[in-house]
Structure formats: C-alpha cells, structure tokens
C-alpha cells in the first residue's frame, strides 16, 4: 500500500455530515466515500456518535484526496448540517471558502452566523415529497447535491448505490437513484455550484481497493492466517470483530462463541490454544480488566493466545464511543506476577492486518500472550487501502511435536529447560504427549512444585524470562518515516501514526518514529535509532504520556510531550501547529 511518501501535500477535501442518530448520515457518507474510491481517489473517514441507539448527534467525516490519505482532517470544505446541533458543533471547523448545506425544514440559519461561509438551504422533507421518495432516502438527495457541488461523476455513485442496496430489492435501488438525481439537479438549479472551489474528479476506475477499519483487517487477518477459534463478549469499540467473524463463520469454518462474560471468553481462547487451535479474543479495556487474571494463566502455562484490545477513553465506562490511547501502561504490566507479553500497536488498518498475522506467529512461536492494541479511531474509522497481500506474511506455529517425534521420546517434558525458553509442545489427543498445563509453579513435566524446591522455581522463572531476547529480535523495529535526519523527531505508537504522517507532508525537517510494537521495548535498538536525535517529542492520545514514561525508563531524554485526551484523535492540523511552535 502506498502510505505517506512525504511528497508535497496533495489536496485534501473534507466532507462532514451531521444530524440526529438514525438519520442515515453514516450510510450516506459511506456511499459517497465508496464512490470516491471507485473513482480512484483515497479516503479516510470517522464517525462521532453517542452511547445510545437513537437520537443525539451523529456525525460522519471523510477526508478525500488523489493521494493516499492517512487521517481525517479538521478543516471542513463541505458541511451538511441536518439539524441545529450538528450545525453548531461542526461550524468552527469550516474553511472560509467552503459551503454548508443545511436542512431548512429543520432549522434556520441566521444571517452572519457563519461568519462568511456560504450556506445553502436544502428543505429535505419538502424535496422528498416533491421527488416522490420516502423521507428515509432524504440522505441520498443530500448526496446528489454534494455530487453536483463537487462535480463528481453520477455514474459511479449510482453504481455504488446499486451494490449497496442490491439485497433490498430493485425498488429501493431505484428510489435512491432517483433521490440522488433529484438532489443533483436541485443543486445545479439552486446553488451556485460553479463557484464552489473544490472539485473531485475520478482518476481511474478502481475496483481493487477496499474500504476498511482496523477491526475489519484484524478479522480478515485472523481468517487469513488460520485462526479457527474466537470467543468474545461484545464491547464497543471491539464488537465489530465479533460481528464480522460470526457473520463469516459459515464460510470460514471458524468457531465463534459469544459467552457469558469476558472471563469466560479469555479462558476459552486459552483453552483452545492449549488444545492446539489458533485462537483469539477481542474486547475493550474494561472487558480486558476481567481477563487480567487469565493473562497470568496463559503466561505460566505457556499457552499461545491473541488478544485484541480496542481502547476507548477511561477510566471505567468513560466515553464508550470515543477514542483514547490509555491502556498501554496497563497492559504492559497487567496481572499479578512477572512474565512476558507482547503489545503490537498498529497505526492503521493496513498495519493491523500484518501485525495480526504476526501476533499469531509470536504467540505460537514463543508460547506467550500477544496483544494487538488498537482504539476506537481506527477500529471504527475506514481507510481506503489496497487489498492485503498473502505473500507478505507467513505462518509459523513454533515448536509443535509430531506424533513421530513424540513416539521417540521416553520422557516428554512439556516445560523442558531450554536456552531460548521455549519448549516443544504436544497437543491434547497426541499419544505420548500427556502433560499437565499448570497454573501452579511446576517442574519440567508441569507437575506442581513448592517453594522448598527453590532451585526449580528460579529456573522456571528464568526459562520464561529467557524468551525476552528472542522475542525482541522477532518484534517489528520502530520505523522511521520522513527524512533521515531532522530537527525534531516525533515518537508515537498506534493510531497517532495517521495524523502524524499527514502532518509530515507539511512539516519541514521533522520525522516520525513509529512503534508498531510498544512492548517490550528494546533499549539497545531504541538507543541506536535515537542516536543523534536532537529533539524528541512523544505524541500520544492520552493524558499521562504512557509511552513517554516507558521510554524514560529505558533512558530516552524526552524534550516534549504532546497529549490529547478529550475523546478525539489528533488532527493533522493540530500536529502541524503544535510542532511548528516547538521547532
């Protein structure tokens, strides 16, 4: 996939639609996004919505460009305000020469209110009646009007509509096409469309790109690399992994279980891992809190397990439908006792795919729990990307004993002391491999020891800890984006990557070191990478500066921390502004 190439900034167009929940903003928005992608453009979108099912403000925002786009932008060129609340909330982000369409059947805009931003009324109820369509398709009138303003190809739009509503029948398809056409013509007739300075042109016909969230690519990756067992209890913003995998189960043959609670989900994932199946669970921070005890169980029994954790602002229920990066420090030391776990921190859907395949390899090769830590912003925001390439990952199940190998062993030791810390696994059902996976400290066969046998205790702790060296070698190294040398280096993990990459397109002599694996940290590697770096600025979507704290522990001198914890991700513009001040 083509991510930021640090070329000169391409033109970015940002469109936002806001209204009452259930108003169909997200559907309308996504259709428009799809139409853009079909025309060879690139998109990144995000929704804001409250923790309720109907009512309340819901917005959908997408940034579009003829170059890959890695984040949503704050500055909005086209706003569709379906109610007063949306209007008030979104107005501050409008660019001077942008346009606001508003539902004039719902509210009036007073003169001067927009400080010069052009507005056009769109009386949606009336227009729906006029167009003889159901009010529910009003959002397609909007879409048509947008297409007119932007000069976008109606053909492509109609195609997307056909695909989207195909399973709802011809009638629905036609109604929506009618609505789009009506909106298009209405805008042409009533708005000064030519004066709108932002135009979108299809570049080429693209039926290869996919529009996906990180939850989507995580789900795809799990399927692609042979995960056959998934147990998960629903929790925003992780739920869509459960829903996707469940909806695919009849195709993929995966067993998908929604159990009574997260405690059960995690133990099931561990049980399946013990039984020899690649297995996974997914949750958010609060759900993971209930899995914490079992994390230690996976560790001491050396059972591979992959845990997807999608963060939202805490503590406790917090802001359940918003975003934050505030569980890293927690996961890094979660659970009683001491043991190794890996935390992979993809920054976008593309990375999430490959890191998830790697998570399974790391879990099986090192027989440890592995996290893929994402957050609401990328779990639910879509990016248009190329299709994942199955040549770009491999499958490594680590040391599994064959029946033949087991037959040759007279005294199989599941937890044999080895230099790497890894001991070959037998799988229940295999003859000659019978052993005890034991949450008590144990000797090499897995049988319980007491502290009287202090030497075995020490050796077993050392064996498990010995994996660290090998794990560090296998982890993705922090990756540098932007110029090799710079005046200022941004450091970050997870979803800050996108907005930072966008900011780099503008910022001069600034580069970005991205941590795709935020734990464990490789002091030697980091020291090497940061050698000669003058200003280190750690940017995180949290209050405490969790990676920053961890980096300080390995001796990194941090010049500045940039933190945001209002429930939203960083915008490229904010980063540009903040960093410009620091340079």
């Amino acid at each position: 996939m083509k991510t930021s190439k640090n070329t000169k900034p391409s033109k970015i167009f940002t469109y936002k639609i806001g209204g009452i929940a259930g108003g169909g903003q997200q559907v309308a928005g996504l259709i428009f996004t799809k139409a853009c992608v079909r025309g060879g453009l690139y998109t990144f979108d995000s929704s804001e919505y409250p923790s309720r099912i109907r009512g309340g403000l819901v917005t959908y925002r997408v940034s579009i460009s003829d170059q890959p786009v890695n984040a949503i932008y704050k500055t909005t060129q086209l706003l569709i305000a379906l109610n007063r609340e949306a209007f008030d909330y979104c107005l501050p982000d409008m660019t001077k020469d942008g346009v606001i369409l508003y539902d004039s059947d719902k509210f009036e805009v007073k003169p001067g209110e927009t400080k010069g931003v052009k507005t056009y009324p769109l009386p949606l109820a009336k227009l729906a009646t006029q167009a003889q369509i159901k009010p529910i398709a009003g959002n397609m009138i909007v879409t048509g009007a947008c297409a007119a303003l932007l000069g976008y190809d109606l053909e492509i739009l109609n195609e997307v509509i056909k695909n989207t509503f195909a399973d709802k029948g011809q009638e629905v398809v036609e109604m929506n096409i009618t609505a789009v056409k009506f909106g298009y013509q209405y805008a042409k007739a009533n708005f000064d469309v030519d004066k709108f300075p932002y135009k979108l042109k299809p570049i080429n016909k693209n039926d290869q790109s996919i529009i996906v969230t990180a939850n989507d690519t995580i789900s795809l990756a799990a399927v692609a690399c042979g995960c056959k067992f998934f147990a998960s209890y629903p929790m925003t913003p992780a739920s869509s992994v459960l829903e996707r995998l469940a909806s695919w189960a009849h195709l993929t043959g995966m067993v998908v279980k929604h159990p009574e609670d997260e405690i059960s989900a995690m133990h099931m994932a561990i049980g399946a891992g013990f039984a020899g199946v690649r297995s996974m669970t997914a949750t958010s921070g609060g759900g993971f809190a209930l899995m914490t005890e079992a994390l230690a169980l996976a560790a001491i029994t050396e059972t591979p397990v992959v845990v997807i954790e999608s963060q939202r602002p805490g503590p406790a229920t917090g802001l359940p439908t918003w975003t934050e990066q505030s569980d890293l420090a927690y996961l890094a030391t979660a659970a009683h006792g001491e043991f190794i776990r890996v935390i992979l921190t993809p920054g976008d859907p593309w990375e999430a795919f490959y890191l998830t395949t790697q998570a399974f390899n790391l879990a099986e090769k090192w027989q440890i729990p592995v996290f893929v830590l994402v957050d609401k912003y990328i779990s639910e925001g879509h990016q248009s990307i190329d299709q994942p390439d199955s040549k770009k990952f491999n499958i490594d199940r680590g040391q599994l004993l064959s029946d033949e190998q087991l037959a040759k062993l007279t005294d199989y030791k599941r937890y044999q002391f080895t230099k790497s810390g890894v001991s070959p696994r037998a799988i229940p059902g295999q003859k000659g491999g019978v052993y005890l996976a034991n949450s008590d400290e144990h000797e090499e066969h897995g049988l319980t020891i007491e502290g009287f046998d202090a030497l075995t205790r020490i050796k077993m702790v050392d064996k498990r800890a010995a994996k660290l060296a090998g794990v560090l070698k296998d982890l993705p190294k922090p990756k540098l984006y932007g110029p090799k040398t710079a005046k200022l280096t941004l450091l970050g993990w997870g979803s800050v990557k996108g907005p930072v990459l966008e900011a780099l397109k503008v910022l001069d002599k600034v580069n970005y070191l991205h941590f795709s694996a935020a734990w464990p940290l490789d002091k030697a590697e980091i020291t090497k990478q940061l050698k000669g770096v003058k200003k280190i600025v750690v940017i995180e979507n949290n209050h405490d500066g969790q990676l920053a704290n961890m980096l300080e522990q390995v001796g990194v001198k941090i010049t500045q921390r940039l933190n945001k914890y209002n429930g939203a991700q960083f915008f490229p513009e904010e980063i540009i502004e903040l960093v410009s001040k620091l340079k």
Partner: protein
Amino acid sequence: MATEKDFLTPVLPTWCPGCGNFGIWTALRQALAELGLEPHQVVMSFDIGCCGNGANWHQVYGFHSLHGRPLPIAYAVKLANHDLKVITISGDGGGYGEGGNHFIHTCRGNIDITYIIHNNHRYSLTTGQSSPTSEHGAKTKSTPDGLIEYPFNGLQTAITCGATFVAQGYSDEVVHLKELLKKAILHKGFSLVDILQPCVIFNEKNIREQYKQKVYKLEETDYQPTDKITAYQKAAETEKLPIGILYQEEKPSYESQLPQLAKMPLVKQEVKKEDISQLLEEFK
C-alpha cells in the same frame, strides 16, 4: 487397553488421610479404564482447591486452571477437538461460588462435558471458610457468627438451566460412583455429577455417619429420571440424600450443532494461509 493404573502419575496424592477425594479419584480412574479410554484421549480441567490439587495425580492431558475457571477451558477444548473426552473437576467453592456464572451458562448450551463437583460444603484448601453449599447457620472461619445465606442447590440449578444429565454421587460409594461417572461421560451433552465428599478436617466430625444414614440409591427405588419437575423436587431432598441420576434427557449437544465441526475437529484442520478474496468483496 489402559487400566486404571495407567491413569496414575508418579505423584502421590497430598490429600489428608481419609479424605473423600480418594473415593472420587478411584471411581474416576476405574470409569475411564472401563470405558476403554487411553490417557491421551482425555482432557481434564481442574479448579484450584483440594479437589484441583488432584491435577497432579491424574495421568491425562490436564489443565490446572484458575479458581472458578476450569469450565470455560473445558468448553473450548471440546470445541477445538470434539474427539476428546472432556471432564472438569471443581469444588463447591470454585464451581458454584467463584465460577457460578460459567456453570449456569454452560448448562444452557449442552456442550458435551462432564462436570464433577467435589462437594465438601467448605473452602477446604483455604482452611475452612463457608462455601455456597454450606448449611444455613454454619459457623466457619469466614462466618464465625453463623452463615446467613441458605445453601446453593447445584442440582436444581443445573436442571433449571438446561443441563441434560444431573446426578448426585457419594465418594464413599465408589462402585456406585464409578457407574454413575461412566454414564455421565457417555452422555452426549452436559452432565453434572455433584458428589458428596467428606472433608475430614473441616466438616463435622461425624460427617461420614451422617452420610451413611442419609444416603440412598435411586436405582434401588422406582425413581425415573425423566421428568424435570420430579427431578427438581428430588434434588431438594436434604433429610435423605438420593444418589444416582436425578435427571437425564436426550438433546443435541452444542458441538454437534456446529457445521464447522461436521467434517473434522478444528485441531485437525491444517493451519495454512486461507483465501480471503471472497470476504474482501464486502469492503469494496
């Protein structure tokens, strides 16, 4: 063919002399051997407790899990490889207290697991606090002024929540228990065997006499374990204690309803790169 001795590890039990757990252990080993099973064909998950300490002297694929959590481990093992016989060992504390939620919900799905409760009415390994099955008024370390709660009835709850095989056993009736366990293991679906287990340390001194007087075998009566309400009422008995099958019903087991498992167990399916192109269409 394996004998009961093949189900022994080199470890000697650490249970107290006279502990009821010995009877359960013997009955289970005999049951497994008589069913013609080999140690590697059996997975047992264990709770933490005196009962769970047994993980060290059962020669099978074992998972000594966390307090209250052996059931979801077993659940997944069965789903991962339904060719295995899967048995779970809990105490009354772990099974009905800490792990109560897993219990009620596992009953609902009728997964083919045998759930054995070593019911000694106390938290024994932690030296004798009250458990969910302790009698009302019990003076224990955690309730020195007498337990206010009334005991949890695992048998009735299992019947209510959909378990398809619900039985009570007594650890001193080893032959009876062995036969009961064989039936439970052969039963296709979720089977609960709640076993009265004397704890010679934390139960009343005369616990064995009490059981001797109270326990009777259902097979020696004309009781039929086919009606839910009858079984529910039978399960309420405390003056006399019925042992045997209280309730049994044929119903498809959870794993038998998964088309994913129709061809072969999950674990036998090769782990390889899977083609996801069909799924990708959804995202275009």
